[in-house]
C-alpha cells in the first residue's frame, strides 16, 4: 500500500514538474491543425537576420504536414513594389505576405481581415498599441512580428566629464544632464559643437520617408499633427515651422552634418559609430552594431534614454517622441489557402519563434517574450543590455506611434521631404517651404478623393 502511494505521489510530482517545465519553455502555436497535402506560399522580407526566423518553418511543416514554399525574399521596399503589382494584377497567389505598419494602409482592399481567425486570448499577447496600428476601420490586417522605435543615444564621455559639466553650467546656468526635451537637445548639441567637445551635435536621416518620419516625430512630440480631422495638411502650422527652423538652424550652424540631406539610416549610424555625434535619436536595431568594438569607436561609450518630448510651443499637447513601426504578416484576399496561411502566421508569431527572433536583437511585440528577454538579460555583462530592453518595452508600450494610416503616406512623403530639404538647405524659408508642401499635398489628397 505504501509502495502504491509512493508511486502515485512520484507520478504526480513528475507530472507537476513537467507541467511547470512546459510553462517555463516558450511554446509554439499554430500546430493544432492537420494541413497534410497543402502547400502554403509565403512572400516575405529577406536578407541578413530577417531570414533566421524561417529556419523554424521545418518544425511547422513536420507538425502539420504542410509544405511551405517561400516565393519571394526581398528587402522591404522591393516587397512593397511586388505586393502593389501583385495586388493590382490579381497575381497575389500566396497565403502569407510580409507587411509593415507604415505600408499596410495602402494594401487594405487586397488583404483579408484577420480578427475572426484569432481568439481574444491569442491577440492579448501582443502590444495593444501595435494592434491598434494594425487595425483600420475596425478590421485587423496584420499580425506583428517585431517592432522598432528610437530612444535617445548619447555619448557618455560628454556627460561624465566634470569640466564639460562645469563649462555648460557657466555657459547656460543649467546642469548638464541627459536631455529629455527637444529644447535641451538643441541647447546641448549646440554647446558641444561650439566648444569643440563633439564634431557634431546631432544627426538625422535627411531624405525620403526617413526625413519625413523624423519631422513627423518632432512635430507630433511638440503637439502637432500632419493632417487635421478632415485630412487637410496641418504641418505648416507654427509648430511645424518651429521644427523646420530648428533643423535649418542646425544645418547652417554645423550641428548636423553638411551631407545630412543625402543621408539614410546607414550613413547616420556611421557618424555615431565614429564617435562624432553627441546626441541623437536612433533605432534600437543598431544596438549590436554600436556595441561592436571592432566596428565602432563609440562602443561602450554611449547610453540610452527615452525619446524627447517636443518643443514647448506645443503647450500641454507635447508628448514623448516615438515614431515607430512593426514588421508583420498579412494574408492576401486572394490567398488560395487562407486558413493554412493563418496557421503559419500563428506559428511564426508564437511565443517560441518570437523569442528566438528576439534573441537576435529584434524588439518583440509580445508581452510574454518581453518578460523572457529581460529576464535573460539580467545577468548580462553589460548592464546597458538590460536597461535597453526595459526602456524599449516602455517605449513600445507607451510611445509607439505609426505614421497616419492612410494609403497616401508614401506619396505624401515624396511630396514633403524635398520641400523640407529645401528649408534645411536654406533655399526657402520654413514657412514658404511648408506652405508649398501643403499646397501640393492638398492637391494630391483631393485627387485621392479626400475632399
Amino acid at each position, binding site marked *: 500500500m505504501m509502495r502504491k502511494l509512493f508511486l502515485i505521489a512520484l507520478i504526480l510530482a513528475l507530472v507537476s514538474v513537467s507541467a511547470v517545465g512546459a510553462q517555463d519553455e516558450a511554446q509554439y502555436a499554430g500546430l493544432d491543425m492537420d494541413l497534410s497535402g497543402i502547400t502554403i506560399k509565403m512572400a516575405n522580407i529577406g536578407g541578413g537576420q530577417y531570414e533566421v526566423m524561417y529556419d523554424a518553418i521545418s518544425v511547422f511543416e513536420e507538425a502539420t504536414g504542410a509544405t511551405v514554399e517561400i516565393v519571394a525574399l526581398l528587402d522591404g521596399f522591393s516587397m512593397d*513594389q511586388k505586393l*502593389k*503589382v501583385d*495586388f*493590382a494584377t490579381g497575381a497575389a497567389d500566396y497565403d502569407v505576405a510580409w507587411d509593415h505598419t507604415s505600408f499596410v494602409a*495602402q*494594401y487594405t*482592399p*487586397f488583404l483579408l481581415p484577420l480578427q475572426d481567425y484569432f481568439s481574444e486570448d491569442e491577440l492579448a499577447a501582443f502590444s495593444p498599441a501595435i494592434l491598434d496600428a494594425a487595425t483600420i476601420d475596425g478590421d485587423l490586417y496584420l499580425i506583428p512580428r517585431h517592432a522598432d522605435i528610437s530612444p535617445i543615444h548619447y555619448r557618455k564621455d560628454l556627460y561624465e566629464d566634470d569640466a564639460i559639466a562645469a563649462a555648460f553650467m557657466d555657459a547656460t546656468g543649467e546642469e548638464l544632464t541627459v536631455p529629455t526635451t527637444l529644447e535641451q537637445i538643441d541647447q546641448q548639441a549646440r554647446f558641444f559643437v561650439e566648444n569643440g567637445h563633439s*564634431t557634431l551635435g546631432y544627426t538625422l536621416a*535627411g*531624405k*525620403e520617408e526617413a526625413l519625413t518620419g523624423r519631422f513627423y516625430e518632432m512635430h507630433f512630440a511638440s503637439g502637432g499633427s500632419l493632417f487635421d480631422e478632415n485630412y487637410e495638411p496641418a504641418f505648416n502650422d507654427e509648430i511645424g515651422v518651429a521644427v523646420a527652423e530648428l533643423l535649418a538652424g542646425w544645418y547652417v550652424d*554645423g550641428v548636423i*552634418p*553638411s*551631407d*545630412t*540631406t*543625402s543621408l539614410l539610416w546607414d*550613413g547616420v549610424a*556611421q*557618424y555615431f559609430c*565614429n564617435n562624432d555625434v553627441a546626441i541623437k535619436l536612433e533605432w534600437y536595431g543598431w544596438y549590436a552594431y554600436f556595441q561592436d568594438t571592432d566596428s565602432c569607436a563609440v562602443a561602450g561609450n554611449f547610453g540610452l534614454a527615452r525619446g524627447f518630448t517636443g518643443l514647448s510651443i506645443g503647450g500641454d499637447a507635447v508628448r514623448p517622441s516615438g515614431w515607430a513601426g512593426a514588421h508583420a504578416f498579412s494574408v492576401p484576399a486572394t490567398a488560395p489557402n487562407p486558413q493554412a496561411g493563418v496557421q503559419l502566421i500563428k506559428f511564426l508569431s508564437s511565443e517560441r519563434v518570437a523569442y528566438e527572433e528576439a534573441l537576435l536583437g529584434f524588439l518583440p511585440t509580445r508581452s510574454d517574450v518581453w518578460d523572457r528577454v529581460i529576464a535573460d538579460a539580467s545577468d548580462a555583462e553589460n548592464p546597458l543590455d538590460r536597461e535597453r530592453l526595459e526602456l524599449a518595452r516602455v517605449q513600445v508600450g507607451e510611445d509607439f506611434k505609426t505614421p497616419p494610416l492612410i*494609403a497616401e503616406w*508614401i*506619396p505624401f512623403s*515624396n511630396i514633403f521631404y*524635398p*520641400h523640407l*530639404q*529645401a528649408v534645411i*538647405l536654406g*533655399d526657402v524659408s520654413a514657412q514658404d517651404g511648408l506652405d508649398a508642401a501643403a499646397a501640393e499635398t492638398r492637391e494630391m489628397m483631393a*485627387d485621392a478623393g479626400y475632399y
Partner: protein
Amino acid sequence: MIGRRKNADDGAAPKRVIQFSRIDAGAFPFLLIFPAVLVILLVIAFPLLYSLYVSFTPYELLKPNSLNFTAARALRNYEKLLNDDIFWRSLWNTIVFLAVTVNLSYLLSLALSQLLARVTFGQSLLRTLLMVPMMFAPILVGMQFRWFFNANVGLVNNFLISVGILQEQGQIAWLVDVPLGMITIIIASIWMNIPVMTIILLAGVLSLPSETFEAAEVDGASGWQKFRFITFPLLAPFSYIALTIMSLDIARAFDIVRIMTDGGPARRTEMLWTYITRLAIEDTKFGLGSAMSWITVSLSVLFTLYFFRQLVKARIVQ
C-alpha cells in the same frame, strides 16, 4: 515501291511551284517580314500605344477602377505636368546635364582618339584599358562615385584633408551643394561614357585618307591646321553618330543619378527619368508617369531627328 514514291513526289513538286507562283511578287517580301512585324507590333507597338492610352487616364496601380478614359479628364495629366514646376526643373536639369556631359565627353574623346591614333607601342593594351569603364554596370559606377564623394568617409574629402587642403570640420558636401551635386554626377557619367565615344571617333580617325594629310604637309600646314581643316570636318559623320548615340544614352540618365543623389537634395539634381520613376513607380501614378514618359520620349525623338539631319548634311558636304 521506290518507283511509285518517286512518281508521287514528281507529281507533287510542280504543284508547289504553282502555289508560290500564285503569290503576287510584290506581296512576297511582306509575307516574309510578316512574322517579324507581328512580333514587333505585339512587343513594342502595343505597349507603347497602351501607355499612350494610360497617359490619358488617372490610372493608379492600386486603384484598378481609375484606368478609365473620359474625354473630360483626358488631358488632365498633361495639363498637370505643364503646370508642374518640378517637371520643368527636371527638364532643365536634364538639358544642362546632357549638354555639359555630351560636350565634355566629346572633347575629351576627340583628344583621346587623336592620341590613341598616334600611339605606336602598346596600342592594343591601351585600347583594352580604355574599355574598362564600359565593363561596369551604371549602378556600380554610381555606387563607386558616391563613395568617392561621400562627405564623411569619401575618398576625395579624405584626400583633401590628408594633404591639408581641408579641415576635419570643413568637409565638402559634394553630393549636396550647388553646383557640386550636378558636377559629381557629370564626372561619373563622363567617366563611363568616354570609351564608347572614343572608340567611334578613333575608328573615324583611322579611316581618314592619308593622301589629304600628305598634301597638306606638302603645302606646309601646321598640326593644328591639319586638325582644324582636315581631321575635324572629315570626322563630322562619326562625330554626329557618336553625339547622337551618346545623347540618347545620357538623356536616359537614371542609374547613376538614382544611386548618387536620387534627384536630390531638394530636387537640385532631379532629372526627367528620376522624376518619372518617383511618379510612376513609387507613387504608383501610372497615368501621370506615362504622360511624362511620352513627353520625354517625344522630346528625344525630335532631338534625334535633328542630329540625323545634321549627319545627312555632313555626309552630303563630304
